[in-house]
């Protein structure tokens, strides 16, 4: 039947692997989710098949005229003998099924809570229209990392992500790792993540937050503990110094002109926090919260005219001259 084909075909072709995939099961809760989803699907499919069997039998079965209970035989008010018992059995079956599913859901919830107790890493994510402000804090409060639109997590370590919003309601969702949690202005919510497999994943805002809600993604890197510490150490460094005259011109532009009133590059005069932190911008996988992959061409396109790539974004189209553009992009590429 067409519906069966419609079920199998996309699954077969799309597969269950993916970097923004709820069935990926790469987080601590992920295995629980897959298990619970499979259980629910199995039980629901079974009930559905029962209903369909009853429906098609009712419609297609061969009838003998004599034992019809219709207006034509005058028995249209009579009920068949087994109906009451079948109804009771059906009600009991539904009740048992739902109770089983509710109990399974409850235990999964508890298991998720247990997995994520005692977090060892603290991250604060603040949602903005349409980018993620990510801050890591450590025991030594003089060390704090601020980055944007990316999340690095050491594998197997429990991370507590505190969620706040600067403007409207957003939703933090990394399907491979865990369910979602809303970022609500005026409230602080949190989500615990325990990644189980290294890899590159993608998260996305899942609550409509304005014109560029579709382009508010998060690059997630799950890596070994050593790699994570290396990344953190690099992030703690100030912005790299320019090395060529072109980069120097770019550095001068960025730290004295329009860029400096919104962006922060640690260790330089540009120290605003209106827009994403750019200190190690070139080490990220994407530009503008997942709108464009990070490469030289896209950098040119983004800096020259952000409004054409992400119309409505808060970063204005400045109208740089070609020389200024070359210089700015050259220095941005230095920011590894």
């Amino acid at each position, binding site marked *: 039947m067409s519906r069966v084909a419609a079920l199998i075909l996309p699954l077969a072709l799309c597969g269950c692997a993916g970097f923004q995939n709820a069935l990926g099961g790469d987080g601590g809760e992920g295995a629980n989710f897959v298990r619970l989803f499979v259980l629910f699907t199995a039980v629901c499919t079974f009930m559905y098949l029962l209903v369909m069997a009853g429906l098609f039998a009712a419609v297609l079965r061969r009838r003998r005229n004599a034992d019809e209970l219709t207006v034509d035989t005058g028995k249209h008010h009579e009920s068949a003998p087994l109906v009451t018992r079948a109804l009771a059995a059906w009600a009991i079956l539904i009740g048992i099924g739902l109770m089983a599913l509710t109990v399974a859901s409850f235990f999964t919830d508890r298991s998720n809570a247990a997995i994520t107790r005692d977090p060892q890493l603290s991250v604060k994510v603040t949602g903005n229209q349409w980018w993620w402000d990510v801050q890591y804090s450590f025991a030594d409060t003089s060390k704090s990392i601020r980055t944007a639109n990316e999340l690095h997590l050491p594998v197997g370590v429990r991370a507590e992500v505190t969620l706040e919003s600067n403007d409207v309601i957003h939703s933090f969702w990394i399907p491979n790792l865990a369910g979602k949690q809303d970022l609500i202005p005026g409230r602080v919510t949190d989500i615990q993540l325990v990644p189980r497999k290294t890899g590159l994943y993608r998260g996305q805002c899942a609550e409509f937050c304005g*014109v560029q809600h579709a382009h508010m993604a998060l690059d997630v890197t799950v890596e070994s503990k050593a790699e994570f510490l290396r990344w953190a150490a690099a992030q703690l460094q100030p912005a790299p110094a320019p090395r060529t005259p072109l980069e120097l011109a770019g550095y001068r532009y960025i730290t004295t002109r329009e860029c*400096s009133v*919104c962006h922060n590059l640690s260790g330089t005069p540009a120290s605003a926090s209106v827009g994403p932190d750019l200190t190690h911008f070139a080490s990220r996988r994407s530009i503008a919260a997942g709108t464009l992959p990070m490469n030289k061409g896209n950098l040119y396109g983004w800096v020259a005219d952000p*409004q054409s790539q992400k*119309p*409505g974004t*808060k970063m*204005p*189209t400045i109208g740089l001259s070609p020389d200024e553009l070359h210089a700015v992009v050259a220095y941005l590429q230095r920011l590894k």
Partner: protein
Amino acid sequence: MSSRFRNSCAILAVAVLLGACDREERQSRAKPLGETVPAAASPDTIYPGDPSRARYVDARGASYEGNAFAIAQGQQLYNWMNCVGCHAHGGGGMGPALMDEKWRYGGRIDQIAASIYQGRPNGMPAWRSKLTEDQIWQIAAYVRSLSGQVRKDAVSARADSVSNTPPQTQTVRQPVRPADSDQQ
């Protein structure tokens, strides 16, 4: 029959809502409108000849003043660029008040935009290489709304912050006294 009613309803509502188009426009880029410096950059006092004749108005101003998106962006930029630090939310402090009738350098939108663009003596920084023109016009439009100069259906009543002004939809329109007026 019911379509007849619907047609009449439509005509009526068109008349009512006709002003909607410009107010609700959301430009992602500024319209290319020529020169870089807002025209009529000078305050009234330094025009030669009869000051009352100097009523040159830049056409761009109207398109920003009546536009809800521009005013909302201006409100956001006003907070982001820390205008609040000197001007508070219109009441002034280190800098002059922006919600009253006194305008040292002119209270028309193009004069306000010029003040933001060029900077002014005694501490008003020049934003000409820090913000795009579009952004400066948006802030100027917002500043105009602080003293009630813009149409009330284009402003927002409040920001999502601690209440610091009366609702802007209720702000009484202040007169704009020119800089060379002896009522300053």
